[in-house]
């Protein structure tokens, strides 16, 4: 039985049980993964994760139930559970309706690669070994601490009482390596490198080599001085430190619930003119691309910040209904066992013109941070944490690796203090595409 047949019949069952409206989100993911631990293969897993989550609505009362079994009996029991929960629940006065059917755009190109879909355990093991060997060959001092390579094939089907019928298959290949370097009794900090793609054009060698290079470059760190100044954030820390608070503040649920500092600020200047950010659910080969969101609503492109001016918020159908407007197709779920929330599809920071080396050459005194181990308060924008694989920069040149250095600041202030944006963009694990970003007025704290 196809996934779509399962979701359709679940909706019908719920309707028979008296639902005003119902929705089924069914998902099946096949994962092949190889885990490296202490430089050894720790495990190899082939697993199929599947299940269905049901929203049952009666008199504005919502019950949600899920099961990992797609058998007819289990799904029927789950429909009944959802009904019982809805009876026990209290009405939500903000509830309007599940989304109605709309014409879906064509599936974004390059989100399904049959080659990834059929990768075997041994083939993923081979990719892992290629990364592993590349790290070792790159530098003798590099030691692999851990890593994981995974190939996913995901099929999703969404159905609801208002005629939404959406189904799609996609693939994803991702891998990461954590490397440390050892020299004369000294151990470097842990260096992290990764990549993720929708198609098989994937270079495990590059992941291994870059992880080793980063680890080796952080051997023999020195304690720097404390100052307020310039910091180059690599894509990974840039997305954590600068983009997470942006993502949280343009989430319409947070805006409506007065949690966003950008409530009521549409049209206002919130960042430097050089900063433009869009959410694009249809990005070709995008790691977060799909023709529809987790409620079956068409994906689209939504401007967030245009030349420093706040342009838009992201909605799912619930937040959109509250304002009697259209959803932006940003309903998101972490799995069939979760209710939809609002989240980005692919968040894209518009790249600038300069290569990383040109950004470095612009810095008279500052640091570059390649990993951020810390906390970001997404509501208030405060961030503080350890600058990992950080180097001191003076007169446009990288001088030495830093130890025990922390950075802190406020993201909403910092996006007004962007000096320059790099050109080399890449996706991060949060589905954020960003190049390195050079910012100023950051607290750089050393012991």
């Amino acid at each position, binding site marked *: 039985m196809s996934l779509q047949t399962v979701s359709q019949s679940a909706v019908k069952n719920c309707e028979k049980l008296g639902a005003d409206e119902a929705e089924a989100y069914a998902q099946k993911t096949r994962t092949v993964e190889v*885990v490296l*631990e*202490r430089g*050894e*293969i*720790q*495990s*190899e*897993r082939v*697993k*199929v994760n599947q*299940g269905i*989550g049901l*929203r049952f609505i009666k008199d504005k009362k*919502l*019950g*949600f*139930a*899920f*099961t*990992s*079994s797609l058998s007819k009996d289990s799904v029927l029991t*789950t429909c009944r*559970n959802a009904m019982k*929960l809805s009876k*026990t629940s*209290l*009405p*939500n*006065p*903000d509830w309007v309706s599940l989304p109605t059917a709309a014409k879906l755009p064509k599936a974004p190109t390059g989100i399904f690669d049959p080659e990834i879909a059929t990768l075997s*355990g041994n083939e993923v*093991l081979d990719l892992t070994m290629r990364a592993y060997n590349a790290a070792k060959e790159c530098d003798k001092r590099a*030691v692999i*601490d851990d890593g994981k390579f995974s190939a996913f094939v995901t099929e999703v089907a969404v159905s609801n009482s208002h005629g939404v019928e959406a189904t799609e298959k996609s693939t994803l290949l991702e891998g990461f390596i954590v490397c440390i370097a*050892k020299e004369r009794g000294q*151990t470097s*900090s*842990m260096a992290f490198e990764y990549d993720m793609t929708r198609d098989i054009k994937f270079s495990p060698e590059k992941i291994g080599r870059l992880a080793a290079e980063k680890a080796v470059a952080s051997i023999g760190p020195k304690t720097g001085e*404390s100052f307020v100044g310039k910091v180059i954030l690599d894509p990974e820390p840039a997305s954590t430190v600068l983009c997470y608070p942006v993502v949280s503040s343009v989430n319409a649920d947070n805006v409506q*619930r*007065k*949690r*966003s*500092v950008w409530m009521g600020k549409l049209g206002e200047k919130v960042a430097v003119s050089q900063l433009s950010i869009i959410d694009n659910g249809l990005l070709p080969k995008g790691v977060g691309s799909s023709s529809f969101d987790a409620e079956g609503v068409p994906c689209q492109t939504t401007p967030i910040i245009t030349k420093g001016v706040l342009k838009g918020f992201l909605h799912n159908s619930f937040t959109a209904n509250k304002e009697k407007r259209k959803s932006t197709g940003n309903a998101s779920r972490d799995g069939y*066992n979760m209710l939809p929330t609002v989240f980005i599809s692919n968040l894209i920071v518009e790249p600038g013109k300069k290569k990383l080396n040109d950004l470095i050459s612009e810095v008279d005194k500052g640091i570059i941070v390649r990993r951020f181990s*810390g*906390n970001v*308060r997404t*509501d*208030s924008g405060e961030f*503080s*944490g*350890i600058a990992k694989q950080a180097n001191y920069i003076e007169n446009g040149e990288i001088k030495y690796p830093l130890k*025990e250095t*922390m*950075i*802190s600041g406020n993201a909403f202030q910092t996006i007004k203090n962007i000096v320059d944006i790099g050109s080399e963009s890449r996706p991060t694990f949060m589905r954020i595409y960003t190049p390195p970003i050079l910012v100023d007025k950051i*607290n750089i*704290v050393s012991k």
Partner: protein
Amino acid sequence: MRNAFIVCILKRELRGVFFKMMLDVMVKCLEKSVAEHVEMRHHRREAFTVAIKDGKVDALNNGVVEGVCVRALVKGSWGFSSTTSLLEKDVLKALRDAASLAKDSKPQKKRSARLAEVKAYVDKYVTPLKLDPRKADKEELVSLVMDTDKLVRNFSKAIVSDNVVFNVIDDDLSFASSEGARITQRIVRCFGSVLAVAREKGNVTSSIEAIGAQSGLEILKKTPLDEVGKVAAERASKLVSAPVAPAGVFPVVLENRIVGLLAHEAVGHCAEADLVHGGSFLANKVGKKVASTLVTLVDDGRYPNGFGTMKYDDEGAPTQKTVLIEKGMVKGFMHSRETAHDFKAKPTGNARAWNFEFDPIIRMRNTYIESGDCTVEELAEEIKEGYFLKGGLSGQADFTGEFMFGTQEAVHIKNGEFRESLRGVTISGNAFEVLKKVDAIGKDFAMRIGLCGKEQINYVGIGGPNLRTNVLMGGAAK
């Protein structure tokens, strides 16, 4: 009504029968195995959630995730396979897959896994429960969570939004091995959290606090959700217009509710035998002094109501209290059967898997620093210029011992007295330097719940008393 009650009892008994059957299916499959050592686990996880947002029920949520996994050892190489099907033929297929994966990956593996001896236990364990959530009146739970939500939103004018969540995670686990182990465990965890958001003159801040334990619903009487709701609401209201704490190295008192983060992140991970093997800070340090003599740090798999408590681990080894650091000296590590063999030690019951989709790896259970005898005022007394850090956020550590974790609130201490509250910042340092600088330990102990991610996530308990030390605070420039 009476009939409904009977059906309910019958269903529960049937569940018991069902798990016995699942164990039988696994045992039957085990008989057909050709691998030298096989472990099979069945795991059924039932989750129930009440989530209230700003006074409105977001959803009532309930579901089941269930499956079986097989781990087979063939000539020192592990293979693993899992399935969500409970049919004998599919379990057998998983068994064959695990064995063939073990064989196929053997040439790529340098080390050969060998296991320390463990008695093949035949036993049953159930979380001690006074109020079994399976029998609970769900409407009552909803209204209880609604009450906390009301209290939080009415706490002050500044509070504009909240999330109040209560969860029950009810696990049925069976374990069978080719050595003859037959273990069933039911582990029930109840936990809740309150996130309060305050807004004033365009400033926004939030605070989060949680309660929870391995327990029945009686946890809500012992540590009411209202109590942490008040803490979160009060903190958010107080800090909404407060500045951020300053940067630099300061003497600090760490609140008991966050000391567990230090025990877990900074020290605990370095004492996991797999990381020790990989060269963590504690490698080759048994018997050596790494912390102040005031510090005794343990991982306890039997801590009453601990979030990480179980009688047996996912390799069928019994759990225990393992002393990691005694009076500043390294005593031992946490082991799986495999590392115990390599270290010539005894398994400590720390091999854990998140669910049936994962093979067990070494994880902490309930990790804490033992109490001393100072009051929190006595701890502050000696501090001329420092901070009382409260309210934990997330943390991380390298195995060199360099750690960080976030704090929500920094109460200024001036000449031994508590002054104004500032917004908390992330703190960092080398764990063992920080532990060497511990010069006083408090008597008020707190154990709390945590979620740790090490390739796979898991529930852990983290605890300790208030204590005094020095840390680097990543705050605002002076």
